[in-house]
């Protein structure tokens, strides 16, 4: 537990030091969403049909893009090595890393989503479902993403490779998340979808940190 807090507070402090960077995933989210009315069509009906999927796709891409730096800087300055030489277990450290990622991307995204939903003409009764689905779904994205990030940390060209590894694993989350919002726009039940998202989250909280820790060991020992 102590290492969990140590890691969490260090990484949050680092994030706070570069306050500007905290805004980046958010701004990216906003911009990707802004590309659609520009690139596709500005018609409200069309956009409102598009909204559930596009909001989720943009959230996914924003989470994806910030993965690259999750372990990279620790790897490069050698602090990752030192983490793995800690006498404490690596599980809490891995969990803390994924949590920081979520706190700095998924959470603010979910909180900002209602605003953007309005801009994309998503029916307002679907907004609570949007927020809840993002709140349950994005932590899974962070956890899975952290695995891929840990796997690729030792490699030079991480950026695009991570996307490649991660997108197939993100797709189930995307499908259930977007379907939930889609159903909500049509006043259909959403509990089943949210429950599936929840169980994915539970599963990844339990298993992902092990995979993260193991991947980190491999990446460092090469």
């Amino acid at each position: 537990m102590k290492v969990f807090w140590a890691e969490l507070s260090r990484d949050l402090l680092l994030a706070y030091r570069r306050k500007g960077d905290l805004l980046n995933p958010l701004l990216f989210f906003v911009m990707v969403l802004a590309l659609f009315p520009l690139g596709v069509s500005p018609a409200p009906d069309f956009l409102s049909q598009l909204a559930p999927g596009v909001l989720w796709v943009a959230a996914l891409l924003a989470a994806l893009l910030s993965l690259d730096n999750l372990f990279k800087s620790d790897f490069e300055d050698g602090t990752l090595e030192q983490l793995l030489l800690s006498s404490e277990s690596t599980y809490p450290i891995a969990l803390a890393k994924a949590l920081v990622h979520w706190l700095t991307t998924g959470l603010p995204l979910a909180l900002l989503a209602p605003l953007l939903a309005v801009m994309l003409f998503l029916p307002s009764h679907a907004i609570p479902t949007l927020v809840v689905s993002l709140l349950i779904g994005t932590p899974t994205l962070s956890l899975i993403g952290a695995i891929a990030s840990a796997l690729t940390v030792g490699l030079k060209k991480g950026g695009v490779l991570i996307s490649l590894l991660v997108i197939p694993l993100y797709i189930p989350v995307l499908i259930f998340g977007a379907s939930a919002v889609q159903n909500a726009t049509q006043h259909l039940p959403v509990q089943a979808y949210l429950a599936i998202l929840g169980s994915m989250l539970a599963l990844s909280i339990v298993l992902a940190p092990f995979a993260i820790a193991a991947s980190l060991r491999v990446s460092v020992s090469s």
Partner: protein
Amino acid sequence: MAALLLNITDLYCERDDRVLFEDLSFTLNSGQILQLVGKNGSGKTSLLRILCGLYHAYEGSVKFLGHEIDEDRDSFHRSLTYIGHHVSVKAGLTTQENLRWYAKIHPQLDVQRIESALASVGLAGYEDVVCQNLSAGQKRRVNLARLFMLPSTAFANSLWILDEPFTAIDVQGVAELENKILEYSRAGGAVILTTHQALQISENVSQLNLDNWGT
């Protein structure tokens, strides 16, 4: 009296089809300072990383206090301080914050000693400077400050593995560090280090030349 800390038997390691060492066996007792020497590329860093458990592509056995290091990793790491080629200092944190984090992930380090450790490495007054704004040598000094944070009660039967610790350190800094190493070994700690410079201290020091073990 001197406990057998490390027992290395029949170590074999090759990289890129070149055998770095073969049938390498040696032991390290508490209080001993072992200086690895050898040409560039002779395998010093590789050996040190193997001993830490950071590199696994080897054959043979590495025992710490009688246990394979991979089996009883946590207790081994509790006795180990490793300083590698990397600076191991987060550029975005201040010197103090860096050391505080170290103390949390390595419980054997003493948080109380941060200030005195910084002073010992000549960085008094730099407590709140972000490490990005330090010179090459100063960054390495922050990393070395960890050695000064270990309480002397934890010296006995613990191990320092130092890969070129004197890199970028000025003359006076090197002398102080060597004294610290000597003090540590006198109190029962064991040290393995590499350096291309000659050591000024000679008490307890033995050498292992890796040039003789490979092909």
